[in-house]
């Protein structure tokens, strides 16, 4: 990063200057310390309960003992189906917005506006909506399918926005060049634009997975509480985050297993977000190079 910072700032040492530095430094230190404490507490509480058999074992005694094997499988299934449901409409919407309509036209503004509005909906409201629409109206019941459809609605705006900005940041001369070569719209999108924007789209998908994995409120009343091994998408399956909530709130002496589950969730989220960040950095580098 280029330093845009007057050197004279660091040469003068006035009392006010030092005071502001101390205040700001304290604020930064308190922020990092407080949040570092949270992470440390989770590691301290969770690590003793963590083992291979915890990760793969069945849930016994409502989670007080045993492991989280079925929970991890349910979580993976919810994530997988959510991605399968959200990727087609999100990509289609973003491609339509970026390639098919004029920027700022009425239709484009209505669609982007309502997608942005969707982004502002609190997660508990997604839960309430998912319960009444997917579980009850569509008759899917408390199931992995209901949960993943609810999550798909929730991460849709994120995916539309990241795909849209990936498409819009492509070099502008790609499109007239493709047209001049006589490529059809479908070929241009499928063979030129999407492959070029793929790294940016992957960043969006990774971020979406992170959001979905962290989500609890939208899942409690859609994917349900069952702790057995899920056999089909229409089974009820408990997500990892819901498991933590249930152990901490409703199961006496559940906090040991809850800390270990929280630690597992935290590690997964950090891995996913780091992946997203490094993908984004690579995408950025390639773009500034070209």
């Amino acid at each position, binding site marked *: 990063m280029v*330093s*845009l910072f*007057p050197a004279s*700032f660091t040469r*003068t040492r006035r009392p006010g*200057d030092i005071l502001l*530095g101390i205040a*700001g*430094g*304290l*604020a*930064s230190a*308190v*922020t*990092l310390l407080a*949040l570092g404490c*949270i*992470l440390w*507490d*989770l590691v301290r*509480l969770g690590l003793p309960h963590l083992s291979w058999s915890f990760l793969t074992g069945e849930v016994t005694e409502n989670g007080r003992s045993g492991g989280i094997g079925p929970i991890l499988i349910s979580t993976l299934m919810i994530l997988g189906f959510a991605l399968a449901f959200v990727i087609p409409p*999100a990509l*289609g*919407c973003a491609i*339509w*917005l970026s*390639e098919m309509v004029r920027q700022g036209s009425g239709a484009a503004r*209505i*669609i982007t506006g*309502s997608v942005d*509005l*969707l982004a*502002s*909906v*609190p*997660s*508990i*409201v997604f839960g*309430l*909506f998912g319960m*009444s629409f997917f579980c009850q109206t569509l008759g899917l019941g408390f199931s992995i399918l209901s949960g993943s459809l609810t999550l798909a609605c929730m991460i*849709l705006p994120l995916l*539309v926005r990241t795909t849209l900005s990936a498409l819009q940041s492509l070099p502008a001369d790609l499109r007239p060049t493709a047209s001049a070569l006589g490529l*059809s719209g479908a070929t241009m999108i499928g063979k030129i634009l999407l492959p070029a924007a793929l790294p940016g789209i992957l960043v969006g998908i990774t971020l979406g997975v992170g959001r979905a*994995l*962290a989500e*609890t*409120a939208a899942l*409690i*009343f859609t994917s349900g509480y069952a702790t057995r091994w899920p056999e089909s998408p229409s089974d009820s399956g408990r997500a990892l*985050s819901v498991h933590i*909530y249930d152990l*901490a709130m409703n199961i006496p002496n559940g906090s040991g297993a*809850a*800390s270990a589950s*929280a630690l597992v969730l935290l590690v997964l*989220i*950090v891995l996913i*977000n*780091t992946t997203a960040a490094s993908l984004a950095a690579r995408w950025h580098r390639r773009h500034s190079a070209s």
Partner: protein
Amino acid sequence: MSRSRSDILLRSGLGTLAGLSGSVVLLILFFLVAGAMPALRDGVLPRLFLDEFWQPGSQRDPQYALLPMLAGSILVTVLAILIAAPLGIAGAIFHRFYLPPRFAAWNEHALELLAGVPSVVFGFWGLTVLVPLINRLHPPGQSLLAAGIVLGLMILPTVALTSQAALRAVPGSQLFAAAGLGLGRVATVFHIALPAARPGIVAGVILAVARAVGETMAVVMVCGNIAKYPQSVFDSVRPVTATIALEMGYATSSHKALLFTAALFLVLLSGALVGWLAFRKGKNEAAVN
């Protein structure tokens, strides 16, 4: 562009997907309104503000006082912002004007990592570590204070990161001009950088408010969930989101309709906040052009 049949097919296919994406929010609003309708029909709505207690499940004497829950939401959010905004903004000033670039990058990475910590994990930490601490200070521990602190810590990385971005976007030329005029660091921060970065910082804080009002998990685990007006920060509270989360599993008839009404209210509130932000941004951009 050629208009072959496949292109028309593609265009209409993509248009359908875009329409589908755009209609999700309408579907949600429709379901919320439909769900809230019975409350309007039964004339329960005014009782949200007139009744004294919240006992919607009672057969003999159902009461629907929602105001204490609204107060709970507002108080928890205010407390969270009071914690997150000063720390986040002061930290961002330090980050931009004091920290050497190498440490600044580390600081930013750490904050990004912390911004991803799931809310249920914050709630769990609050329940197992913070609540016992507050309980030792003043029972019961599950309180407005606990909820405010947990929520404040949760939104702190967001406030800090958006403030950093806003300060970074202030053109370096302005800072150099200030230095050239003999302004010191403090004067530059308060008279040049902060006024220029204010729209971005305010936007970050408003986004944090929207997130705090809509947050459920981090709050429901530590707030005690008693539907009364709190008399002090050590009293239990019950925000609107917690009420929905705790009761939607078993609510029926008027009670259920009220939960939908509460959800509709949440959507309108956070939609208004985000819409206002977009409007402000549009106006700022128009002013710049």
